[in-house]
């Protein structure tokens, strides 16, 4: 089958649009489109409606820049959460990861990326100003840096540290080392070495 020989312009258009999505090639795109053609009218309408509403009505939280249905997201507007602790993450996906741990009760700050000149991303493209403003207004005791452990993540950590260390706020970062459930013989030397350097006092929980 020659995938470029469509019998209908409408079909071709739809295939082209799906193929623009990440991870979807022309073959998958055609499969999806043909699948939609076999569906009820209402079902397809629901799909297109969901996409349109998503794009039109979604907000970014004014406080933490997380994706939200309202101006202030559910996390930031929740009075039960600890409003003195802010966890700095790269993206919305990372908020979900940290939330999934069920270990964190503070707020977030989504940077929208990390500093990387190669990708043309500098401080002006990210939400550092908002973060600094938040800290300078007081009321925050701790900033937790939860960025990727890559060179770009480290550099962004340094940058944030330089901007915030003039304020009376504790700056912490995620622990790095052997992951839970790992057998030592399979841990790589760099990680194991770092875990040794950053070893911690052994405490028995009673």
């Amino acid at each position: 089958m020659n995938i470029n020989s469509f019998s209908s312009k409408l079909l071709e258009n739809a295939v082209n649009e799906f193929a623009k999505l990440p991870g979807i090639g022309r073959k998958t795109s055609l499969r999806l489109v043909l699948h939609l053609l076999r569906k009820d009218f209402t079902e397809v309408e629901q799909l297109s409606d969901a996409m349109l509403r998503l794009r039109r009505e979604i907000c970014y939280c004014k406080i933490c820049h997380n994706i939200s249905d309202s101006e202030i997201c559910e996390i930031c507007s929740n009075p039960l959460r600890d409003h003195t602790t802010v966890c700095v993450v790269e993206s919305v996906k990372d908020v979900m990861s940290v939330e999934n741990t069920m270990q964190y009760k503070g707020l977030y700050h989504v940077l929208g990326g990390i500093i990387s000149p190669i990708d043309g991303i500098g401080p002006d493209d990210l939400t550092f100003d908002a973060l600094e403003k938040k800290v300078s207004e007081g009321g925050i005791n701790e900033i937790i840096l939860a960025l990727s452990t890559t060179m770009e993540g480290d550099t962004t950590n340094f940058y944030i540290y330089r901007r915030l260390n003039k304020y009376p706020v504790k700056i912490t970062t995620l622990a790095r080392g052997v992951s839970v459930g790992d057998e030592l013989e399979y841990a790589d030397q760099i990680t194991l070495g770092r875990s040794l350097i950053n070893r911690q006092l052994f405490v028995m929980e009673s």
Partner: protein
Amino acid sequence: MQLQKLFLLDFKNYVEADFSFGPKINCFTGNNGVGKTNILDAIHYLSLCKSHLNTQDSLNIRHGRDSFMIQGEFLRNGLTEQVHCGVKQNQKKHFQRNKKEYSRLSDHIGLFPSIMVSPSDNALIGEGSVERRRFMDSAISQFDKVYLEQLVMYQKAVYQRNALLKSFQETHQFSPEMLSLWDDQMIQYGEPVFSRREDFIRELTPVFQYFYQEISGAEEKVELVYSSRMHHASLKDLLAGALSRDRILQYTTVGPHKDDLQWMMNGFPIRKFGSQGQQKSFLTALKFANYDFIAQKNETRPILLLDDLFDKFDNKRVENIVRLVSGGRFGQIFITDTHTERMKELLAFSGSGNRHFLIHGDHIEIID
């Protein structure tokens, strides 16, 4: 460590070949173009996951086929281990140890170390500084994984810093604050890279000089000089001093990525003042010293691959080398040569544990 068996399928000119090796010297003799070096290259693959010529993997597939396979059986710390390498056109390279696929090839490198001495080593003398840095970096990385990590991180920092310098030019802006972030990263990883290289050359030099004397039997005094501007100033100061030039050129002009090694003979660069035989003696001594270094750090003797070693040497130096390699200093050795008789003499000289393969275009003959 020893390679006991090797099996090739559609690798370079080999349709199918099966070898059983001896624990000491294994030599391959035959005419030009019969595929002697290809055997060494296959062993190189098993050791370092790639061809020593640094070619694309798919170029090593026999013409008209779409995949090749190399299998080796090693004896390592008393255990038999199998290493498998498979390359299929347009597919990811498969690498297995004892039937278990590696998720990262770098986990394999260093487990079955080898050193190749080949005519292409000439590039270390004739080509630019990048070859000499690569020699130094790969020699150190073979036993020091932390160094490799630091080097990779350092190179990333340089890459990002260069991109930032370029973006300054394009946007007509300059932010010393942003630049210093990458300076700090370069310093954090660059300083240990420099001192590790310095230590390495200091440790390597006496062993290298010993081997050069053994090979040449001559009075020439040879030296390895690590030239780096970091001998005289810290990387922080160097970066500060080069700032205006870096901004104009839009790349980082100082740091360990600009270091070089100078090969000296009697106080002069061997590139200009050494004969071909002297240059080859120099390179061979360098590789032997590298071998010795890895053997000591690893506590296991690497496999020594000697490709067309005797070419360009006078008789005296050939004799010296034969004495050197047939002594107990090296473990298992693989040699290629065009002179079958010369190899027979060498093997007769060095006792048992050797095998001699006579390579013909279509079959392989074993000489007793």
